[in-house]
């Protein structure tokens, strides 16, 4: 089920009419079936489970999530927790400074 990890597509080839790719997991490389990401491009990240890419990894979304994590708590430091939610709901952005 769940052990799926992100890797970067290094090269793509057709083997037995199945779309296969060499995928780079940091320092480890493995042949991965790309049948379910048919328009995959070299350089893209995919999420791989038991030798199959099951989804693209959206790099921009990953960066956004991390950026959101970094912003967490900054408002609270300034305003205290009760205000935070109200402020967030009111659409006030972070950045009031410390």
């Amino acid at each position, binding site marked *: *089920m*769940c*052990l799926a*990890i992100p890797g970067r597509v290094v090269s793509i080839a057709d083997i037995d009419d199945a779309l296969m790719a060499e995928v780079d*997991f*940091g*320092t*480890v*490389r*493995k042949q991965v079936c790309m049948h379910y990401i048919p328009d995959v491009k070299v350089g893209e990240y995919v999420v791989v489970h038991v030798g199959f890419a099951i989804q693209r990894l959206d790099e921009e979304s990953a960066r956004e999530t991390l950026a959101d994590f970094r912003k967490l708590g900054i408002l609270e430091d300034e305003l205290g927790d009760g205000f935070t939610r109200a402020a967030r709901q009111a659409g006030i952005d972070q950045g009031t400074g410390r």
Partner: protein
Amino acid sequence: MTGATESHDTIDFEGWVCPVPLRDTPFIVMGHGGGGAMSAELIEHLFLPAYGAAATADLGDCAVLSVGGSTLAFSTDSFVVKPMFFPGGSIGDLAVNGTVNDLAMSGATPLFMSTAFILQEGTSVGELGRIAQRMGAAALAAGVRLVTGDTKVVDHGSGDGVYINTAGIGVIADGVNINAYRAQVGDAVLISGDVGVHGIAVMSCREGLEFGTAVESDTAPLHGLVAAMIATGTDLHVLRDPTRGGVSASLNEIARASGVGIELVEQDIPVPETVRDACALLGLDPLQVANEGKLVAIVPGEAADLVLQAMQAHPLGRSACRIGTCVPDHAGMVVAKTGMGGTRVVDLPLGEQLPRIC
């Protein structure tokens, strides 16, 4: 225990370690050779009772014997690795270095070794020759003499290529007393370098698992490193080479034998990127992956820096570091402080390391 729900406070947690020894496996399975809990049970519940009074020690990796005025170390090990050649070594290198290291972990200087082969009919003579050459080279490098040997051939199908048994004798200097039961509260836990390298190198070329990696086995003779550590004048308490079952198995054995708890700091454990990545791919714990050229040392806390300096000055200990401490809590167990600030139990692996999907 037949009581129901109210009984949990009285459960003997210690007694759980080996619930129904051997009774649940009437046959030998691979896990009995995995160096984990099942191997330990086989010794404790089959060999020791069967040998009875003939067994004078705990049948551990290496026996320490008094002969005349000398203290000898005596050890034997069998090698069945598949594939026989892997990145960074072969079954021949392991057969020599493995026994050298078993001796070295008692502080011995290895002197003599026997080599015995069990060959399957049809094994390539060329391949056997290459294995034997690697053994000769490894013995020369380690400074041990190969002094006796034997060869047997079994029917095609009843063996699998080449099996090697080696036994070795070494001599232990006066005043050296290194033993698994000597770990004490306050002792430092040291490791001589990166963990998990050998196991990943072998797995990378195993059928059905093949993956590309630059990892090479770390197989190496460790007695020189041990000699450098002894030369510091430190009373080294325990040494272990964490082969099958990895660092996790070795430290669990030590914790149990000595009746101390061991607390590791996960971030301090040197796991190379290559091992981390391969473990992430296969779902393995680097602490349970085999090493063939590393040792863990339990030394008095105040001597840790001195021993580390000596290790780091030796080619096989350059990235030696401290990874934990022996503590009075949770005696017999190994725990690790995680990077997140939590704690986890580092358990004795049950048997063979298998890639998991979930």
